[in-house]
């Protein structure tokens, strides 16, 4: 097998937590707020159903083909040539999505902190760091996630606790004033973020305790959902109906913190959360892309592909959109359907076809399924 190191399912869960959350806590509250307004805290709960579905699909597919990733079993399920085409579509999707993640990171850092640094420097340095962790393999990414994620959670809690005196819970009333529809519409964009749980299809073959994969996957989705609910609630309680006019509501909330004229300018903490989280997020996407490409080309080692693909990623990040506004518009409209097709609809089809294939295989008694 191409990847020699093994990770535990707990490590997988801890890797996936920032993979969804890192970008979701900054851009998504404002997008959700635009559709759901006062019910924006309900949207992540509705959206998480997609996350649970995706974990279930990935685990079921992994049960059919335990030692293979998405790229490999799509060839087995729908045949060699269609499988290669689908694999290319997935690789292209991950290349572009990872480019967008890089761009979100670059826009955030340049827009809020390093306003005079060229974007290419910010993105390029992150790409280099991530390339080193991807070269190390799944285990290295998992271990760096184990170090960063507890820090991220503690810092997030710190921000929320300091915000408590300023919160106005009455902002959320009346609940479901206009029915369930606004919160449902608001949940579509977070759902596309939750659909990124399909990435565990690239990690499941390397678990040494695969039996616990489903349990830890669900726990991971649940913690992401809770964190998103808390983030949206704190933005809503603080800003009320104007939440959607901020690009980064959590960032603006952190700027707002002022304890006894002493504890101020805590946005640097959000920056720390963001950089650490995005590092893990990009590494997981990058890893899936590199591993998938190596398997798509039937190569024996994926390490030599890391740097060339990293270079392509940096180009894609600058190529995807001319500016932040257009990128956010793209993320809320067409990308949603792109992500849901690639990461929800196609895995469902693959699972159905795989099950049919498995049934036929056992009836005839062929050795196709070994």
């Amino acid at each position, binding site marked *: 097998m191409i990847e020699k190191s093994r990770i535990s399912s707990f490590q997988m869960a801890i890797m996936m937590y920032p993979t969804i959350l890192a970008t979701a806590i900054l851009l998504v509250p404002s997008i959700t707020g635009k559709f759901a307004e006062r019910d924006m805290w309900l949207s992540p709960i509705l959206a998480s159903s997609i996350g649970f579905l995706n974990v279930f699909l990935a685990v079921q597919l992994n049960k059919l083909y335990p030692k293979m990733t998405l790229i490999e079993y799509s060839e087995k399920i729908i045949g060699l040539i269609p499988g290669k085409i689908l694999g290319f579509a997935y690789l292209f999707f991950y290349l572009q999505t990872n480019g967008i993640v890089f761009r979100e990171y670059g826009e955030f850092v340049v827009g809020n902190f390093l306003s005079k640094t060229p974007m290419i420097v910010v993105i390029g340095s992150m790409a280099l760091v991530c390339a080193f962790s991807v070269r190390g393999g799944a285990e290295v990414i998992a271990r760096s996630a184990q170090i960063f994620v507890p820090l991220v959670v503690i810092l997030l809690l710190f921000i929320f606790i300091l915000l408590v005196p300023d919160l106005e819970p009455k902002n959320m009333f009346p609940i479901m004033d206009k029915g369930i529809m606004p919160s449902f519409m608001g949940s579509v964009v977070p759902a596309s973020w939750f659909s990124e749980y399909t990435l565990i299809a690239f990690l499941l073959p390397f678990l040494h305790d695969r039996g616990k994969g489903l349990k830890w996957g669900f726990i991971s989705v649940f913690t992401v959902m809770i964190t998103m609910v808390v983030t949206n609630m704190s933005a809503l309680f603080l800003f009320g109906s104007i939440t959607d006019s901020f690009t980064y509501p959590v960032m603006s909330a952190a700027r707002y913190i002022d304890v006894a004229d002493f504890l101020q300018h805590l946005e640097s903490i959000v920056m720390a959360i963001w950089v650490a989280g995005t590092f893990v997020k990009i590494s997981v996407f990058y890893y899936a892309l590199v591993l998938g490409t190596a398997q798509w080309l039937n*190569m024996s080692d994926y390490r030599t592909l890391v740097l060339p693909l990293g270079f392509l990623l940096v180009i894609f990040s600058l190529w995807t959109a001319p500016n932040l506004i257009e990128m956010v518009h793209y993320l809320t409209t*067409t990308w949603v359907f792109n992500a849901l097709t690639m990461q929800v609809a196609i895995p469902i089809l693959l699972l159905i076809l795989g099950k049919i294939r498995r049934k036929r295989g056992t009836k005839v008694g062929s050795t196709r399924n070994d």
Partner: protein
Amino acid sequence: MIWGSILGITFVVALIILYEWPKLKQGSKKEKATVVVLTGAGWLLAVLLVFFPEMPGPTDVIKAIFQPLGRYMEK
């Protein structure tokens, strides 16, 4: 400025190839070809983007495919 960017891109690409070369030497022909093609494609894209920054990108492809659905999310 344009030629500076191209020089920078070429420098990065050369560094990538130099860094990978010792490992690639032992590898098969296929691996060498893959790395060279990927890095070459990256170089070509980067240079094209320096000359035509407004070149239609992957986003436009996705937009063209999913536009009818994307309209539902306009607000």
